[in-house]
């Protein structure tokens, strides 16, 4: 029961922050609301026994990505603070489509294959403390080794690409 209450609290904060992020007039406010959402998601990871991902979420997103966002916002300060009116017509279509999407998800949950399954989570297969080890084994022994190595290439390419783009003259 306490878990459900905790979930409800975290979820409420996340949804409110998300709405606030979208409607905030200033980009820097949006960024701060996003940080709140990321923390909430990290907490939810913890409730799902994914403490390694929770840590990564904080370090990578809140630590690295958000710093980058804030950095760019300060770099482009006058432009980033431009008061750009929202596009209402698109907003209506988008809201309708998003509503349809929600209905679809709800329908799947209600009548799809998941409907017949037990609603609650089974007891965890690996104990709390072994999550990191499980991820490591999964990553390096069950066929994810090549993709894992490829991500390093991807990151290098991203770094080089960003440098090329941002630099005026090489």
């Amino acid at each position, binding site marked *: 029961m306490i878990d459900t209450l905790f979930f409800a609290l975290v979820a409420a904060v996340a949804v409110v922050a998300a709405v606030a992020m979208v409607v905030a007039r200033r980009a820097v406010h949006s960024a701060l609301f996003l940080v709140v959402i990321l923390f909430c998601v990290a907490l939810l990871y913890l409730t799902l026994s994914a403490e390694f991902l929770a840590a990564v979420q904080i370090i990578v997103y809140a630590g690295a990505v958000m710093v980058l966002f804030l950095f760019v916002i300060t770099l482009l300060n006058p432009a980033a603070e431009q008061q*750009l009116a929202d*596009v209402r017509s698109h907003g209506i279509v988008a809201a309708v489509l998003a509503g349809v999407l929600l209905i679809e998800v709800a329908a799947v949950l209600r009548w799809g294959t998941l409907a017949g399954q037990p609603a*609650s989570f089974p007891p965890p297969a690996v104990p709390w403390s072994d999550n990191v080890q499980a991820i490591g084994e999964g990553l390096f022994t069950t066929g994810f080794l090549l993709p894992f190595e490829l991500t390093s290439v991807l990151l290098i*390419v991203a770094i080089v690409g960003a440098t090329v*783009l941002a630099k005026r003259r090489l």
Partner: protein
Amino acid sequence: MIAPLSYYLILSAVLFSIGVVGVLVRRNPLVMFMSIELMLNAANLTFVAFSRYFNTIQGQIVVFFILTIAAAEVVVGLAIIVSIFRSKATIDVDQVASLKG
């Protein structure tokens, strides 16, 4: 006792929808990017929830990769925004339509 799976999925869908609306409504590319991050996080949450539900580690590994891609995407995307701003002196995406056929 953890909250039921469907709670997590519905929360994920809600966050995703908010992200979608954000991408489509805002004209500030920075906020559009943040909304995309929100959508990615919503998807991640689904992965982790199913990973726990089926007691397999693969879902978490996929999230791990998505994190990497998101980081790369942000880096490149922000660099593009910076260079667009340099050449056009604005970051309004509706002003940037040079790919019009």
